[in-house]
């Protein structure tokens, strides 16, 4: 009981926890939005330009897949974040805060998400694509009306995984000025040795991940008619 009263009187909880949670949610939501906006078309392009795809273009596939996606993905996220700080500052005018962190988070997760999209699309059988083409679909119609809807369960799962990853990354971003729960845990839990705040932060993050995963699984099931 005493532990709980202590906790409820701790300014780290009463004053800082809520804004930090909101910041984390903000970062995660915004980066998810931009990651999907850019990563989905990129993933589609990766799939379409590949050998046997809808519009095979070898050089473009090599550039997109081999150079951009693979190189970005092979840089450890912490290093990528730090190296993107100047770029984030250029885009949003500041190197600090959740909005700046969103820029680095988005750039860091796009290639990851694009690969997941590509994999989900690859699971759509070529027979369905053939059927769509034989019925007179344009390539754009094949993508929009067949490939994406047919891959929807996989795409939802990919988005869920990406959101979960982003929650984790956003905590990391907190350490380099991004704010949010990561910052809270660092400031109170690490710098001031207030391990109860550390524990509460961890619980909040775990809850967030659980909720996202449960929602994502539910949605994936709902769109899956296979």
């Amino acid at each position: 009981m005493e532990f709980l009263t202590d906790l409820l009187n701790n300014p780290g909880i009463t004053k800082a926890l809520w804004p930090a949670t909101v910041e984390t949610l903000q970062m995660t939501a915004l980066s998810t939005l931009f990651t999907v906006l850019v990563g989905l078309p990129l993933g589609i392009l990766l799939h379409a330009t590949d050998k046997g795809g809808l519009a095979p273009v070898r050089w473009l596939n090599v550039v997109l897949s081999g150079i951009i996606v693979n190189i970005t993905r092979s840089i450890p996220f912490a290093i990528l974040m730090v190296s993107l700080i100047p770029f984030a500052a250029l885009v949003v005018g500041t190197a600090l805060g959740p909005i700046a962190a969103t820029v680095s988070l988005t750039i860091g997760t796009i290639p990851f998400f694009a690969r997941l999209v590509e994999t989900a699309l690859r699971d759509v059988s070529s027979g369905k694509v053939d059927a769509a083409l034989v019925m007179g679909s344009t390539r754009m119609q094949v993508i929009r009306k067949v490939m994406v809807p047919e891959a929807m369960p996989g795409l939802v799962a990919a988005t869920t995984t990406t959101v979960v990853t982003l929650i984790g990354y956003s905590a990391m971003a907190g350490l380099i000025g991004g704010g949010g729960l990561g910052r809270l845990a660092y400031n109170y839990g690490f710098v001031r040795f207030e391990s109860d705040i550390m524990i509460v932060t961890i619980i909040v993050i775990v809850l967030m991940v659980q909720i996202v995963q449960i929602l994502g699984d539910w949605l994936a099931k709902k769109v899956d008619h296979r």
Partner: protein
Amino acid sequence: MITIKDLRKVYRQGGDTVVALDGVSLDVPTGKIHGIVGHSGAGKSTLVRCLTLLDRPTSGTVTVNGQELTNVSDSKLRDARRRIGMVFQHANLFDSRTTAQNVAYPLELIGVPKAEIKTKVADLLELVGLGKFANAYPSQLSGGQRQRVGIARALATDPDVLLCDEPTSALDPQTTDEILELVKKLRDRLEITVLIITHEMHVVKQACDSVSLLEAGRIVEHGELGEVINTAGSRLAATLLPLPGDTPSGEGRGPILDLLYSGEQATEPIISLITRTFGIDVNVLAGSVEQLGEQQFAHLRVQLPAGTDAAAVREHLLGIGVAVTEKGGK
């Protein structure tokens, strides 16, 4: 009406070239069901892909109702493809769409108004006997029902030609017959031309008016069912009317003849005819008699007494329209 002229398809694999189609020419008249049979690797799938231009033929032309599909622009090709309805081995339905939405797909592509799509889809589902399943998803249907949806979808744009690629290969015998009956009914009702690619002779017997045998990228035998069966030495005939596997060869006793005949001759007592005409005993080693379409067909293997003049018997039988192949013996 579908016309294929000198279709060739050469695949390049690294340094090697594979000639998958080696000059295929074919005419299927309007309202007929034509079967194309061939062993694995004969080029059946390649032919289908070239007919729908999923693969560009290396050379040659495909014409459907006077419109050439080869050598047209992409947008013309899409229009032309709507003249061919295609049915696939595994139906290839879209799992994210209900039965009705699957059938609606080709109509959505060309911007048919919603209300019109609704009535057309309802009519098509009724036509293939799936009126009650409009809102079911493909995963809730049986293989035969899925194939019916595939057929309804293929017919949505009122094509002139129905192209069926192994349409029953994934189905059990009873469902196979139901699907073939449906195809025949649709041909009669809609006056479409049907091309069925298959490796099942049963499908040819059950549904086809004419048949081609594809081998190593060439059509090596071709003709109407009755015609093909009456051709001496025809491999199609031998597979359409197979003799039992354990047929005795009767080696070393007397001349052995394989007789193939149809229609009127099939009802005539051929054996007693030989006996009466030549005054010899005839031993039947094996035989199969079947009704294919409207006609009766027979395939018999007979042995004549040693020393008989087989050539004379053969001559006589050929004279009354029986195809004869000598299988050896003395």
